[in-house]
């Protein structure tokens, strides 16, 4: 008889350490070789590329006023196309990555048939969705039903301009960077609600109500975390935020030394991470598309390419959320220069590694945790996350204030003068407020689960 294997094995520590050891050895030797070959890198290629663009700009370029020069137009078009292609590919392949990671967590293999190891699966999915019949339910509000996927998808694409792919590789470094991302998150909610309402279906309507409540609520902790980061780094621009983590910002009395913001803002990181997961409707917060309860939630009535829009919008949103998290907390593209790759490419590699690890954690959460009920979700947001986020913001503000304002011995605030009393007063003030707040809401949390309201 053919026997099935049913021993449940633990992590193969020996094998993993062997692989890590070999990897470390390979990296070390690569680094040594790189030193020996005079730190040869691919950076000059990027420099020549930049020079090429400068030459083109001198020839064809002109300022941005209309009629715009040929160069400017071309650059804009190229950037748009690049973003579109890259983003759609990322959206499609992140579905494959998620399916494979989920499958491995569940003792199975995921897509394996299409292409080697299932690499062409997203293309097959895309083609399949393209040729499906788009059914519009009877009684559906035509305009809403048509517009909803569009309104959901456009902010996802628009958010791509913020992503710091690497050093000098941001499409546009907006001066209101983080605020733009925040506004786009709000824009996407409208699409979900239109889909829910325009489907003429009670299930979708329920899902839409839940979704709107959830999305609007979870923007608040996100806003507080963003504000704390802005205080620490001194600017809304994403490039400046990443710079503050690499070189240390001194604007408005920031930290003054380089550190990834996850360290001073660890709680902010957790809160922002949870809010980002909630904003993109991922498990454990996915009651808007809860498969087991409401069939498919707000996109029950969508087929074919319209559903593909919702689907892609979700994954592109995850990607954008992950990149904002890395930009704000994990140092963006910061990382030591890798051998042979040059500054730009290694920054891209570091960025991708960080984004992938955040993505992995998001998928990991989906694979492990069940869904939260609607009232538990709202309770989590309003009773737990918002107080902590507010406390975090308050503390950051106090800290930043303490670094800029000095009190004279007469306890009069004077800007930018030195005094020992100030700092001590700030420390004492922080501690009092801290413990007060902790006492106020944390005593509820420390009780065992049966006693407190769930």
């Amino acid at each position, binding site marked *: *008889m*053919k026997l*099935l*294997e049913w021993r449940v*094995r*633990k*992590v*193969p520590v020996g*094998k*993993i350490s062997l692989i890590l050891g070999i990897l470390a050895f390979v990296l070390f030797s690569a680094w040594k070789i790189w030193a020996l070959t005079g730190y040869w890198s691919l950076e000059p290629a990027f420099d020549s590329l930049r020079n090429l663009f400068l030459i083109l700009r001198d020839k064809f370029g002109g300022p941005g006023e209309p009629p715009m020069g040929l160069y400017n137009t071309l650059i804009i078009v190229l950037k748009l196309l690049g973003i579109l292609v890259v983003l759609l590919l990322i959206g499609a392949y992140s579905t494959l990555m998620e399916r494979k*990671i989920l499958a*491995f*967590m*569940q*003792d*199975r*293999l995921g897509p*394996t048939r299409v292409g080697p190891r299932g690499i062409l699966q997203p293309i097959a999915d895309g083609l399949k969705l393209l040729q499906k019949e788009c059914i519009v339910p009877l009684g559906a509000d035509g305009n809403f039903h048509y517009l909803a996927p569009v309104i959901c998808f456009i902010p996802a694409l628009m958010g791509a301009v913020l992503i710091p792919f690497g050093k000098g590789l941001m499409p546009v470094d907006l001066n209101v960077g983080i605020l733009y991302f925040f506004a786009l998150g709000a824009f996407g909610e409208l699409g979900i609600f239109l889909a829910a309402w325009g489907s003429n279906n009670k299930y979708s309507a329920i899902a839409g109500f839940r979704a709107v409540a959830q999305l609007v609520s979870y923007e608040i902790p996100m806003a507080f975390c963003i504000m704390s980061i802005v205080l620490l780094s001194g600017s809304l621009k994403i490039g400046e935020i990443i710079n503050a983590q690499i070189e240390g910002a001194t604007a408005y009395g920031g*930290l*003054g*030394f380089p*550190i990834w913001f996850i*360290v*001073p*803002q*660890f*709680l902010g990181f*957790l809160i922002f991470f949870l809010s980002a997961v909630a904003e993109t409707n991922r498990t454990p917060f996915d009651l808007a598309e809860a498969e087991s309860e409401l069939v498919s939630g707000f996109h029950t009535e969508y087929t074919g390419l319209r559903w593909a829009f919702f689907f892609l919008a979700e994954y592109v949103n995850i990607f954008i959320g992950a990149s904002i998290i890395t930009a704000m907390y994990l140092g963006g593209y910061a990382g030591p220069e890798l051998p042979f790759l040059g500054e730009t490419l290694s920054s891209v590699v570091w960025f991708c590694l960080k984004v992938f690890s955040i993505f992995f954690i998001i998928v*990991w*959460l989906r*694979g*492990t*945790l069940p869904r939260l009920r609607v009232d538990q979700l709202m309770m989590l947001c309003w009773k*737990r996350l918002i107080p*902590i986020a507010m*406390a*975090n913001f308050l*503390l950051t503000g106090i*800290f930043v204030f*303490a*670094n800029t304002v000095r009190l004279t011995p007469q306890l009069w605030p004077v800007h930018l003068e*030195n*005094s*020992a009393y100030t*700092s001590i007063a*700030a*420390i004492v003030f*922080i*501690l009092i407020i*801290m413990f007060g707040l*902790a006492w106020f809401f*944390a005593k509820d*949390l*420390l009780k065992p*689960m049966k006693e407190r309201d769930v």
Partner: protein
Amino acid sequence: MQLESISNISTVITVLMFCVLIFFAFVVVRSGATGIVSGLRLVFEKFLRNFEQNDTLEYPGEDREMGHRWKGRFVQMIDEKGRMRCDACQLCAQACPDNLIEVLPEGKGRDKRPRVYTLNYAACHNCGFCVDICPSDAIRMSRDFETATYQRTDAFSHDDNESLVFNLEDLVAFESSVYPELFDSSSPGELADSLGYFKNKKIFEEDSYLDYEPMDEDALHVVEEDVEEIDDKDYEIPELDD
């Protein structure tokens, strides 16, 4: 204090802030996230384990070998010389709960063979009673479960090419491909004998296990005098206001 000490103070403040935020984190974690973390760790271990060993059988590529007792497709067995064991005793036709088997014999004595043997495979639900009762071990359930075909006509019987009423031609298979080693029997009819399903090869009417008096036919009829008449006038259907 001079400017140099500012950076020291900043460091102190940062460290303090960090400590206090760790305290907050402790509070949050203590509130019940530890169970979630251990669940996450369990799933991560599974994830890593699957790189080394995965239990998935990639089915159309790798075959699943069923157990020896698997009740698959019905076969009538013949040996390499083409000899059948079936001697048309019609017990399988009697045993089939849905009467899907039809057997018509020809010949007499040791040369008795089925002239017609059909099985309506469309309704067969693989209960295996026919196999259990066959005294000559002529039929088995093979281990074949892949009965789907690419063309409709391939699945139909050769007889009329439009129904699943299989005749002998469709049902025979070589004994070497089908005979499972399980029953450990060199004598035919071992299974039926072990279950005691037949005393001797007589059809049912002549053989009954226990003799009983048939039940009194009146005992099971409802006597009409015992039933109460329900007069509709006594029961008022209440009006529901719309």
